[in-house]
């Protein structure tokens, strides 16, 4: 198989040709489903983030993926993942999937990140993972109760928390900021009695149904 084939979209079966990726997929599939009722400090979350040529789902191309695990409520720099899609998108996405395991995935703006990742996984690996997605775009205003004039975009939230990162608009750089936002959210949510992944997911669903306070 030529290197061109790998870059060509629309060939899900291409992953099957790489034994390493295939094994990684098998291992991932064998993982048990997570217990979403466990308290935050006992749950492994993974912040995932993408880097693309732009924000248009139809025309822009995924460049790189980044992920940071949050286990026990802390960010351990050693538990992180970053891979550009070039030259081996299947390896990059397979590695990401293996890193994530079956953990609840935390993103900022699922509308773009989740859709991008789901498409990429289907396209390059031929799989359709169904993790629990947690979207900070919805959860942050819900937990911090910032009201209609509060922060909205990632940059605004970073400013509100005085969070810095080593590189903006970089898959891992932004993931680092999002991870910090997420541990802050965990801390505050715990105090409010929103103590598990399931509770966060429910909060997000309610929030999506009733976007504005009545």
């Amino acid at each position: 198989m030529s290197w061109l084939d790998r870059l060509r979209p629309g060939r899900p079966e291409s992953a099957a040709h790489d034994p390493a990726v295939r094994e990684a997929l098998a291992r991932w599939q064998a993982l048990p489903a997570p217990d979403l009722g466990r308290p935050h400090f006992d749950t492994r979350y993974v912040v995932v983030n993408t880097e693309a040529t732009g924000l248009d789902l139809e025309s822009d191309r995924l460049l790189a993926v980044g992920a940071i695990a949050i286990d026990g409520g802390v960010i351990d720099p050693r538990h992180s993942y970053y891979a550009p899609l070039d030259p081996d998108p299947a390896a990059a996405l397979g590695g990401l999937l293996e890193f994530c395991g079956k953990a609840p995935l935390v993103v900022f703006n699922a509308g773009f990140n989740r859709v991008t990742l789901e498409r990429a996984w289907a396209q390059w690996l031929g799989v359709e993972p169904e993790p629990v997605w947690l979207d900070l775009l919805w959860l942050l205003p819900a937990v911090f109760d910032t009201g209609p004039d509060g922060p909205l975009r990632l940059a605004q939230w970073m400013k509100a928390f005085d969070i810095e990162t080593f590189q903006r608009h970089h898959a891992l750089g932004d993931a680092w900021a999002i991870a910090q936002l997420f541990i802050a959210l965990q801390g505050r949510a715990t105090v409010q009695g929103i103590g598990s992944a399931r509770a966060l997911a429910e909060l997000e669903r309610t929030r999506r149904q009733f976007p504005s306070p009545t």
Partner: protein
Amino acid sequence: MTHTAPELLVGASSDFLKRFSPFDRMEPEALAFLAERAVLAFHPRGSEILTPEMGQPRHFHIIQRGKVQARQSGPAKVTEYSTLTMGPGECFPIGAISAQRPSTNAYVAEEDSFVFQLGVDDFMTLMRISPVFHLFCTQYIASLLNQSRQQLQTTFAQRAAEQQTMTTPLGNLIKQAPVWVTPDTSTRAALEKMAELRIGCIVVADEAQHPMGVLTQSDLLPRVVLPAFDLARPIEEVMTLAPRTLPATASAYDAALEMATHGVRHLLVVDGEGKLTGVVSERDLFSLQRISLRQVRASIEGAADIEALQRAATDIRELALNLIAQGIGAEQLTRFISALNDALTHRIIALALERHDLYGIDYAWLAFGSEGRHEQTLSTDQDNGLIFVCPELVEKEPLKLRLLEFARDVNDDLAACGFPLCKGNIMASNPELCLTPEEWRHRFGKWISEPDPQALLNASIFFDFRVLYGNQRLGDQLRVWLNKTARANSAFQRLMAGNALQVAPPLGRLRDFVLEEDGTVDLKKSGARLFVDAARIFALRTGIGASGTVQRLRQSGVRMGIPADEVAAIVDGFHFIQLLRLRAQHLETRHDAPGDNKVNPDTLNELDRRILKEAFRQARKLQTRLRLDYQL
């Protein structure tokens, strides 16, 4: 060049850390180690990050963003602050995690805070691999020591301030209710009252207690006794009219001036309405004046007899209190005490030499034990001896008898001045301790070659000798010989080390301290001695001439290649224990109880307790070194 994700994140952490001290100076590998292992946690506003109840801290924390308040828990405010707010780059706890004991502060997030945390094992590794970080932590603990000293100063300054000064209002100086009689009282009755109450002066006042006159002891001879005054007659006929009075608000200085101007020894103190409130005497004022170092020294050197020296000995104790109040550290303090005690001993010997003719005898007065080490505290027995040269063709015994008689006088005089006779008879008047250089060498040599337990005990007292009076060279030569002999005998050193290791520092596994049966810690036996014993062995091994523990540690540390900051920490620990001993002895002797070197840790304030524990850890370090060096 591409970086892996961990590399990128570790880089972000280390970039952050590098903005703060001490991380900016940290060795690159150590910083990488820290940045790689530090995980980031979040603490919502108001949450407790670390409290004493949580037990031994499991993490070392470095604030990344936000504010954390350190709040002192425990009854006493021991540091300069009771609460302290810390911001980015600051870390906690340092003392608690190094000592592996619960924190004494409670750390609470004052606002939403991101805080790096490093596991306790990684913290220990970091201390080991990073000299910069090690120094940072050591200095932090040293600053605690400093704060404790300041605390000590405050306590004693307060006490000193409570002692009156010349600016004290007279009202505060009056010790007892005024004694007065009415003018029509018979002179006999008034004099009987003076005798009964042992007062030097009686006031005559009207019914409203307004003073009208005064009669003092010095008036009796010219006005009563010599003129054969009829004692049945009223006192108003012999009293001094219109006595000098001062308001209660006047100062002691005013009173002294008034007395000096009018040549009187008593002044009447009256309140705002002229009513008698008390009598102030010249003696009351004199006792206010502080004793200065110079005065004590001068009074020792000028003392003509033992009585004068006894007073000087009391003054030395008094002075020690003042010196502590002035914030002098243990090292200087013990040296001052040692210097003054030396001066006192010198003077006692000089006075004894007026009665004993030792002309032509080549001898030296030796001090042993703590006196030999310049480490006397306030309740030290005498430990002394003599070394003398017996010239050829001279009979030794008569010579020795002369020396012994002289020594007996000196020992007795020292005892009279507050240095108790040694229970073990380690005194120059003991014929066994009045020896020629050959005899001393023989004795020392026997202990070294046959080190039974008694010999080792002896070595721990006598090997700390120094010359206090007489021919210094006799001591120097003995020291050179001793060091050479002991240095060559590693079996002896090893036994000394084994002996020194018999008492472990009283550090507990569950509690802070292992206590004696009476609930105390013996600061001498299981504190200072551990340092002293180790220092002695180091000195013998490295051939150090000094007899003091601190000098021995510093000088032998250089020769043994112990890092200077490590030696400094050990010395600080030793000084702190000595300071606690002095303080305990001083406070106790002020209450007329014997100083016994014991301290109940529960009575110490939080900070002192912490530092005491740290000091014991330093002792443990020393012991570990001995154990390793001698394979024990």
